[in-house]
């Protein structure tokens, strides 16, 4: 029997990929093809499917995968944070510890914080982000009015062009922010890789899932030191 107990696991390509492959290898999975062939999506023999990190909750919620690995940032953006809120329904089982990043609010490095200035004078700050729900929630919780501008890539560009006063984005080392003359003003939340499960699989495949959890917990402390390199 395979070390994943016959479970199907959704593995994110991208920043969390290396850490996840390392984890699967530590569990005794043959990951040679997985790490060498980056075109292939479906690795039937080891019960792995690969996809973009933001698609992981989608596949897991639908039951196309029993388990998945994705960042807490993706979960905060896609799943309900309190009962009654909309969002993907997946169970969050384990903090895997690697891929540590921080969700921050940043603005141009100027003597006066342009975001603060906009809020003071215009009553609202414009914030560009790939994480509109996280950004909106953070600003609501801190009692500030904001106009959220969703962008798909290179968020750093938005404040440099004057389109917005601030951004909410994930950073591991802060290098990209510094290079673009942006300064972290607030740290919103720390994000690491999480193991998630389909709600029905969590019941129907309880034993193999719990067995895998036990194996994961028994592994030497997570390889948390390697940053995800979201920058």
């Amino acid at each position, binding site marked *: 029997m395979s070390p994943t107990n016959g479970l199907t696991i959704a593995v994110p390509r991208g920043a969390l990929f290396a850490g996840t492959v390392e984890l699967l290898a530590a569990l005794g999975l043959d990951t040679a093809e997985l790490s060498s062939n980056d075109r292939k999506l479906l690795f039937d023999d080891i019960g792995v499917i690969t996809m973009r990190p933001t698609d992981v909750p989608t596949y897991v919620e639908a039951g196309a995968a029993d388990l998945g690995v994705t960042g807490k940032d993706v979960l905060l953006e896609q799943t309900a944070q309190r009962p009654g809120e909309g969002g993907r329904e997946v169970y969050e089982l384990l*903090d895997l510890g690697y891929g540590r990043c921080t969700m921050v609010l940043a603005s141009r490095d100027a003597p006066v914080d342009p975001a603060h200035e906009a809020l003071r004078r215009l009553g609202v700050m414009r914030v560009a982000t790939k994480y509109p729900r996280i950004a909106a929630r953070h600003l609501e919780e801190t009692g500030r009015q904001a106009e959220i501008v969703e962008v798909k890539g290179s968020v750093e560009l938005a404040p440099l062009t004057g389109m917005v006063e601030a951004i909410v984005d994930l950073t591991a080392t802060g290098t990209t922010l510094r290079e673009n003359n942006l300064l972290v003003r607030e740290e919103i939340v720390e994000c690491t890789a999480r193991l998630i499960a389909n709600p029905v699989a969590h*019941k129907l495949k309880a034993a193999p899932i719990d067995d895998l959890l036990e194996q994961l917990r028994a592994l030497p402390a997570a390889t948390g030191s390697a940053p995800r390199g979201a920058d």
Partner: protein
Amino acid sequence: MIHPIPSGTRDVLPDETREVRAITDTLRGVFESHGYGEIYTPALEYESVLARADMAEARPAYRVFDESGAVLVLRSDMTVPIARVVATRYAGSEPPLRFCYFAHCYRGVRPQRGQPRELLQAGIELIGSPAPSGTAEALSVLCDALDATGLKDFRIGLGDASLFPALMSSLRVREERQASLLEALVMRDFVGLDQMLAESGIDRSAAQVLLEVPQRRGGPEVLADLPAPADEAVKGLARVHELLSASAAERVIFDLGLVRNIGYYTGAVFEVYDPALGAPIGGGGRYDELLARFGRSLPAVGFALGVDRLHMALAGEERGTGALLERTDGAGLAASGAPGGAGRPAR
């Protein structure tokens, strides 16, 4: 020309209707044979009447004013309207009372998701029959009904809504923390639950209990070795299990973390799963305090099946390509996927 209909609603055409009708006819036959008479209630009710129930997640989402300015809502489930019917039309009747229904209910949709705004529910309510016998009767009817539709691999997750709150109180979790811990469990955010417990200053052994117990699911063995405050709930679940026929008992997966997102549940709660579908097909539970809010204090239990989800599960089983159906390639699922398979506590 495009004449749209609201997202989350559907036109159902003859091929599908025929199949859905066959399912509901089968369910109706089973419900009736167990003495559950079918009833209809209005789709529109007074908001002030339905508000007597604590619906939480399933709160009515659509409101309109009538000609006199009263607020009407589209019903979001059938349990509350039937509680109203019992308290008014059957105020003097000798319990137990048995009803079944096939009705469209209306829920607020979650943005960007294929959630139905209008869903057809099939269910029963058993009023005036306490735990454990009433619960066992409802579960038996549920299993008979699903068997009759031809659904093969379904399982019933069985838990108790009072278990986690009882544990928290007995372990002296401060009142103001209980709500957020329960919320983390409702969201099944076990990482968040772990963190909250660590930050709460609750002693470690108590925190361990609150983290470990709700992750227990599997056969009757998960009911063993539980802390004393869980006794009442656990004995109740074991009694229900004993009262079931062998074939129904085999379908049960005890799930000590099961909490449904509807506020009126008080005791045993359950959900129906099938490996062909990634989400529950339906669920139900005991609501022993709801009827009292309408002026007739009676214990009660019921369940509702999402007819569309049942249809999808049947189709998935038929194709053999359901989301979570066991893979047949070399990797193969661990033996525990078979009925009676047991999940051990995670830690």
